[in-house]
Each structure stands twice: as C-alpha cells, then as structure tokens.
C-alpha cells in the first residue's frame, strides 16, 4: 500500500531570505505530484526538506499520518533521484544499484536477486559491470532511477531527473517514467521548472513562486482555471494572452475593452468583476482563431508571424493600435503571414484577473 506525504506549513529561511513560505502540500497514496515553478521558487528546497537533507525552519513532515520531521531520510523511507544522478563513480552499476541494500545489511543473495530485478525493470541488465563514466546520459539516468526503486520506499522524490537529457530523449523518458511510476504505484514528488513536464506527467501540480504556493490541482484544472496571472502565464505553451483592460458597458450590457478588443461579458463574469474598472484579460491562444466559435466576438488584425508546429501553428497577430496577440490555427487553416481580417475570440474561455492582486475573478 502506497504512503501519504504531507508537508505541513513548511517555512525555510536562509538568513533573511525566505526560500519556502508557509507551504502545505498533501500527496495522496500513489499520487504523482509535481512541484513546478521558475528557478529560485523554492521547489528544490522543499524537496530537500522532504528528503531530510535540510531542516525546515518551521513546519512538519508527516508520512502515513506520523510526524517524521525529526527523522532522517532512511527512517522516513525516502528514495530520491538527483538532478546530476549522483551515481557513485567508483562503483559499478551493479554496486550502485545494490548500495542502498548494502547499507541496510540485506543478505548478499537477496541483494543480487533484487539488483537483477531492478536491472530488468530499467533494461540495464547488460550494463551491470560498467562504471558510471562509461555510460551515456540516458543510461546513467536509468541507473539512478533503478537505485531509487530497488528498495521499498514510502515516497520517491525526483529532482529534475530529465533536465540533463537531450530534447528527443527527454520526451521519450518522460512517458516511460510516467508509465513506470504508474505501474509501481509509488507515491511520488517530482520537481521541475518545465511546465510541459508538469502538465504531461502529473496527477497533480503545485505551482510555486517566491516560496509560496500559487495554485495546486489537476494539470488540466490548473490550465483551464489559473488562480492568478502568474499561473496563467507560467502554465501552458504558448503563453496565455494577458491584456490590461477596462470594464465598460455597451448599451447596458457588460463588456471589457482591451486595446482593439471589445468583448461582451457573460453574466457570471460580469458579476465576478463587480464594480472594478481596471482588469486583466486572459485568453489562451487556442481561443483566438480566424474562424468563429459558438459564442464569439471579433476584432481585426494582421498576421505578423507564423510559427509552424506541424499539426498546428501559432499566429502572431498585430492589431491596429499596435497590440500583439497570440492565436492558434490548425494545419489546414489556409492563412499565413500578411493575412489580415477578422479574428475571433471564444467568449466562453475568457478569464478575468484583478489588476491589483492579479487573482482570478
């Protein structure tokens, strides 16, 4: 049975600098949770605290309902994969894999059996007698993961394990890793600065910035309903269009004006916006297109640049007043650079953010 991990009101200060600020994260048994945020957001510090490599200034680490703050990594039953893999350079792959068991004084025969098991799982059976320096980046990473999964652990921590791989390998390993952890059912906490890894791999993402949790939830939920402007801009590629605008009313109907855009608001959004006049408007690129949506509004613009992704393309629109807006078209839309005309906005997908607190409305 997989374990639960609860980081309860963790704060970590280094001198005057607050690296982690009152963070609470709850991870359900077998859940794959990702801490994501720009560098310096405190995600690695949080991971190190979970791994007992650092002590929190305040707060507690609870595993399976037991307060484990004062216990070390071994007592907490933590396994960890490091960013640099941190393989023991003087030991062979076989000895690297077996090391955690050797420390726990597991009998030799048992170690040999489990090393072979882990090697089969990670498909590194043919590398067992090599030293880490004789392995490629992808192979080293497999060994590092093998070393983490060889012993039963309560929680597995992964510190940017994909960041040292080249782009093609990263996408492949991403899927393999996700499958592996889904099959093992281990509770996992994963740290990355790459929002696409967070989106593709996680059951749940925790978005961090400046040591504070910005939002946590299922990847699609966070994508669809970002809690604030930061999350909206950080999650999703291309970035969400974020335009400062004013609330107005067109003949009594609530509307928002942002540059060339003049959008009617749904009753729900209008109510949420309340009496504000300044607002930040958020629209995803896929909700801006040259063809109309079921419930859409339009503005006129020219296509300045097209970024082809193969199956789709990112359109860089320039409006009459000089504003820039990103849209998305499917492969066969037939529009290209220099095109100008009406561009449609999906009114059902418009988000509003408070211009001061940047929180979603």
């Amino acid at each position, binding site marked *: 049975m997989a374990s639960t991990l609860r980081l309860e009101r963790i704060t970590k200060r280094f001198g005057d600098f607050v690296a982690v600020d009152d963070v609470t994260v709850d991870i359900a048994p077998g859940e794959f949770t990702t801490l994501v945020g720009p560098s310096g957001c405190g995600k690695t510090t949080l991971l190190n605290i979970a791994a007992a490599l650092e002590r929190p200034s305040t707060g507690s680490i609870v595993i399976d309902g037991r307060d484990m703050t004062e216990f*070390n*990594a*071994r007592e907490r039953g933590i396994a960890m994969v490091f960013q640099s893999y*941190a393989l023991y350079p003087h030991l062979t792959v076989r000895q690297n894999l077996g090391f955690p068991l050797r420390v726990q004084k597991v009998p030799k025969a048992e170690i040999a059996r489990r090393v072979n098991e882990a090697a089969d799982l990670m498909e590194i059976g043919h590398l067992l007698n090599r030293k880490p320096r004789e392995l490629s980046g992808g192979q080293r990473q497999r060994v590092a993961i093998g070393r983490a999964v060889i012993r039963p652990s309560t929680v597995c921590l992964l510190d940017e394990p994909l960041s040292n791989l080249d782009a093609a390998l990263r996408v492949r390993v991403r899927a393999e890793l996700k499958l592996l952890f889904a099959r093992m059912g281990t509770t996992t906490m994963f740290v990355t600065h790459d929002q696409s890894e967070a989106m593709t791999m996680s059951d749940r993402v925790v978005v961090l910035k400046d040591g504070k949790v910005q939002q946590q939830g299922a990847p699609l939920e966070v994508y669809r309903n970002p809690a604030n402007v930061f999350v909206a801009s950080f999650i999703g590629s291309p970035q969400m269009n974020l335009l400062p605008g004013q609330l107005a009313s067109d003949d009594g109907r609530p509307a928002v004006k942002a540059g060339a855009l003049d959008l009617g608001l749904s009753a729900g959004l209008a109510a949420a916006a309340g009496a504000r006049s300044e607002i930040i408007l958020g629209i995803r690129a896929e909700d801006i297109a040259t063809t109309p949506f079921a419930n859409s509004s339009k503005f006129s613009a020219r296509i300045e640049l097209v970024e082809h992704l193969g199956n789709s393309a990112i359109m860089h629109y320039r409006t009459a007043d000089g504003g820039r807006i990103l849209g998305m078209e499917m492969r066969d839309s037939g529009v290209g650079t220099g095109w100008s005309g009406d561009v449609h906005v999906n009114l059902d997908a418009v988000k509003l953010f408070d211009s001061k607190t940047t929180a979603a409305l």
Partner: protein
Amino acid sequence: MTDLALMSLRPAASRAGFRWRSLVGQAWRYGCLVVLLAVIVFPIYWLVLNSLKHQRDFFTGPPIYFTTDLTLSHWQEALGNPLNQKYLLNTAIVTAVSTVLATLAGTLCAYVLARIRLPFRLNRVLLISILIARLFPPVSLAIPYYLLMRQLGLLDTLPALVIAYTGLALPFVTWLMLTFFQDLPREIERAAMVDGCTMFQRFRWIVLPMSLSSMMVTAIFVFMGVWNELLYSLTLTSLSAKTIPVAIASFVGDNALAWGQMSALSIASFVPILLMALTVQRYLVRGITFGAVKG
C-alpha cells in the same frame, strides 16, 4: 608521456615536400630533449659512478667520467655497516608511520572542515591557523620541538621524530585534501545520506574510495619530505634514532670525505622513493590532474 606529447605535436607530413622540414623539426626537438635529459640524468650517473669507483680514482687531475675498472667495496662497506642498516631502518619506520598518521588525520580534518559548519566562524579561524602553520619556516620550530622532546624525555627516540614530522605534515595534508573535498560534488554524498548512510559510513564507503588517488598523491609528497628531512633529525636525534640523511651528511667528516660510501648510501636511500613513486604512479598521474579535470 613525453613521447605521446611529441607525437601529437608532430605535423601531419603526408606530402613529400614537407618531409625535410619535419625531419629538421624532429632533430631540433630530440636535440632539446637530449640536452634536458643530460642535465637531469648526469648527476644520477655521476652518483652511481662514484659509488663504484676505486678510492684512488676520486682525486685525479681531470675527473674520470668513464671507467670500466669498478668495485663494489663502497657498497659493501656502506650497507654492511650495522649502523647504516639501523639508520635505514629508522628512516623507513619514521617515514612510514608519520606518512600514514599525517595522511589519515589530515584527511579526516579536511573532511570535517569541508563538510561541517562550526559555530562562531570557527571554520575560518581554523583554516587560517592551518595556513599560518603551513607558512611557518620549519627551522623556527626546531628549537621548541627540541625543548619539548627533552621535557618529554623523548630525545633521540623514533617517537620524537614521528610526532614532529606528523605535526609538520598535518597542515599540508589538511590544506591539500580540503581543496579536494571542496571540489567533490555534494550530491553524491547527499545520495548516500538518502540511501541511509551515517556520516562515518558515508566517509568510509563513498568519500574515501573517491579520494584515494588524491590521498596517495598527498602521501607521496609527505613521504618524500619526511624521508629526506635533515634539520629535525639532526636536532632531535644524536645516536640511536638517527636517520639516513643525517648519516649521509656526516660522511663529510673533519679529516675524511668518504665519497664512495656516501654515494652508495645516497643511492640506497633514494631507491625506496623511486619504488614508491613507481607503484603509485597510476594515482600520481590521475591525482595531479584532479583539480583540473573532473570525473
């Protein structure tokens, strides 16, 4: 090593027109090497020759640079002398014990200094004291050591030398190993912590094997320093704990200069260093580059 370097420097002379130029270039390079080699090798040759010459051949008008009329008598006298045997043994014991002690203790000191943050900026204080101790001219400590050993009743004993040499070598070892440990990636030790190692297990199973080559290099330097040490041996010993450098120096007597025996004993005393350097050569080459090349 030198040959390899030369080969990689040699231009690719595939066309016939270049052959002459590369030949001249090679002659020039080998010429330089020969001169350099002569400067280095000649003193050794001279030492070997002197240890084998007859006594009468030492003081001839132009010195004898080459002769086939050789004798082993100096060797027999020098090595057959039970006193010299004792001095050789003394030197070996003192060197071995103080090298092992200084390397082990210094490595442990360095590891702790590199990994543990002591309160009240003690790390800095300790580091600077080590540096100062290292910069102190050994001669200024010889007299204090003499007085200390007299108080302890250790004068003219091997422990006196072992204590002095270990003390002198400790700052050197600590400083060298400290820079090594500071360069050692910490994630590997963190991995060991997560894998359940205590601090000692971490040191014993992970850090020690990884630092073996730099420890060997450090040990070699200590070994050579102690083996050749004259000043402290001269100050702290008189008869029974004398070491070989003192014995060699004392051949320059008031009324006789035993060139032959002196040369024989000199060679006998550098053979162990040569052997040691050859056995740890593998580590030496790796260790010298340990700061420059990672992994």
